[in-house]
């Protein structure tokens, strides 16, 4: 029982980060039908920004907002340089473009920085734990879960209570009709990339704090988690993305602790197997989204 509770807390912490990444993927997919395989590059770029800033003696208090800012800026630049040129293209072209961005960004760091791992110091509290009864709870997980809850509330308020949020939801439901209402496609798409970048930035803070290092290929893992979680949740559904992220985190933690030692290293594989099974029985993901037909 205690072990299960322990797993749930660990899984929630891990899943929270995935949920933030998946939400960013879902927001972009909603407005422009782009499955963004370049999403993880936001963490690659902000990872290097964090490394350089910490190397120059900045404190983590300054690096935290820096990571979010760099992530938002990178998201907007990628939209401007790459995705704005293929707007309205078929889904496959968009997909290939995002793959291209993914490879180009990591290649830039590989060519102009270094292929080697850049490590940086992590804040001391990241490894601290506290005891509740027989449970050992990581301070880190508590902070991640708390911040994620706040970020989700903020996102929900933004979407429900502001004109921008309304425009974003309308555009996700039916882009052409939203434009007929006067919703500017530029503003809504850039807004979506900014929001997606901010969410990835928050996820990135924790990802980088935990990793304590970055490499040119650092974006692969967060990208996989974000895209997978969004797919599990049902692409385009924001609620589904959050749910998918939590489910993925939980599944990883539970499998890692429950599988016999000899196969524990295959956790990832088992997770993929489970995801494949999910799609056999529920190809639309956990939450199905009805999309207006694009004419």
């Amino acid at each position, binding site marked *: 029982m205690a072990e299960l509770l322990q797993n749930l807390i660990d899984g929630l912490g891990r899943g929270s980060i995935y949920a933030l990444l998946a939400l960013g993927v879902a927001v972009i997919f909603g407005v422009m039908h782009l499955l963004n395989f370049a999403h993880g590059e936001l963490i690659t770029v902000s990872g290097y920004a964090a490394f350089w800033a910490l190397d120059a003696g900045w404190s983590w208090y300054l690096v935290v907002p820096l990571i979010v800012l760099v992530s938002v800026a990178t998201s907007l630049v990628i939209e401007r340089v790459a995705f704005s040129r293929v707007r309205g293209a078929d889904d496959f072209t968009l997909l290939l473009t995002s793959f291209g961005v993914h490879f180009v960004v990591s290649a830039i760091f590989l060519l102009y920085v270094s292929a080697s791992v850049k490590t940086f110091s992590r804040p001391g509290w990241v490894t601290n734990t506290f005891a509740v009864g027989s449970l050992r709870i990581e301070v880190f997980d508590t902070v991640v879960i708390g911040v994620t809850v706040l970020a989700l509330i903020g996102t929900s308020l933004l979407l429900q209570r502001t*004109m921008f949020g*309304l*425009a974003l*939801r*309308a555009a996700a*439901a*039916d882009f*052409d*009709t*939203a*434009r*007929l*209402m*006067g*919703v*500017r*496609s530029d503003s809504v798409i850039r807004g979506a990339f900014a929001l997606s970048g901010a969410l990835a930035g928050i996820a990135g803070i924790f990802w980088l704090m935990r990793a304590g290092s970055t490499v040119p290929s650092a974006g692969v893992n967060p990208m996989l988690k974000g895209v997978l979680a969004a797919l599990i949740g049902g692409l385009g559904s924001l609620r589904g993305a959050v749910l998918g992220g939590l489910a993925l985190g939980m599944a990883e933690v539970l499998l890692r602790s429950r599988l016999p030692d000899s196969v524990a290293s295959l956790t990832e594989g088992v997770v993929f197997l489970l995801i494949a099974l999910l799609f056999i029985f529920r190809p639309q993901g956990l939450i199905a989204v*009805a999309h*207006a037909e694009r004419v």
Partner: protein
Amino acid sequence: MLEVSGLTTRYGEISALRDASLHVGSGEVVGLIGPNGAGKTTLLNSLAGLLEPSEGTVTFDGEDVTGSSPERLLRMGLALVPEHRRIFADLSVEENLRIGGITVPAGRRQPLLDEMAEQFPVLRDKWTTSAGYLSGGEAQQLAIARALMSEPRLLMMDEPSLGLAPVMVDVVFELIASLRDRGRTMLVVEQNATRMLEMADRAYVVRSGAIVAEGTGAELRDDDRLFDTFLGN
């Protein structure tokens, strides 16, 4: 107010609309009638900026707006109630109206919402309901109210009575009549030619992608030959 000259719109190789010319004066109600697939929707979508015409010009208030984006045309005062209504099903009735008023100054939005609530009692009763739960007739009224939220100077409607129960068809035509009586400029595509001709100051007959006749409602109604040839299908 609106001048269209020699407009041609193609889908790939096929011209869905060829060399169409028409005009709508301020305060006029103009009908576009003709059989299914004649190119009426293509014409309206080209005027609203959803389709890019390959030839011809569109002038609105003396300004050349050919090929402008929908969001720019709306800001100039040209609104379209699209075919099949296209309301946002997951958004509430109120949110649908708010999005319709996204271009008006924030302070003007609430008075407009109040106006719509008063003018459309069926919508007021379902204010916070998801628009997906509305009946066809209610949804059509929402689509029209949503377009009115932008305070357009030219209101274009695409088949507002399509797929509605007969009693709702009456409601929609009464609504169009009351908008006309308040001096609203409208360009309306309708398959229900008889009723449209009663309503409109003038009308154009569209067939096979071209405008083949023009006249006042009465002229076109009395022209039996025209009526039989182009509409009696």
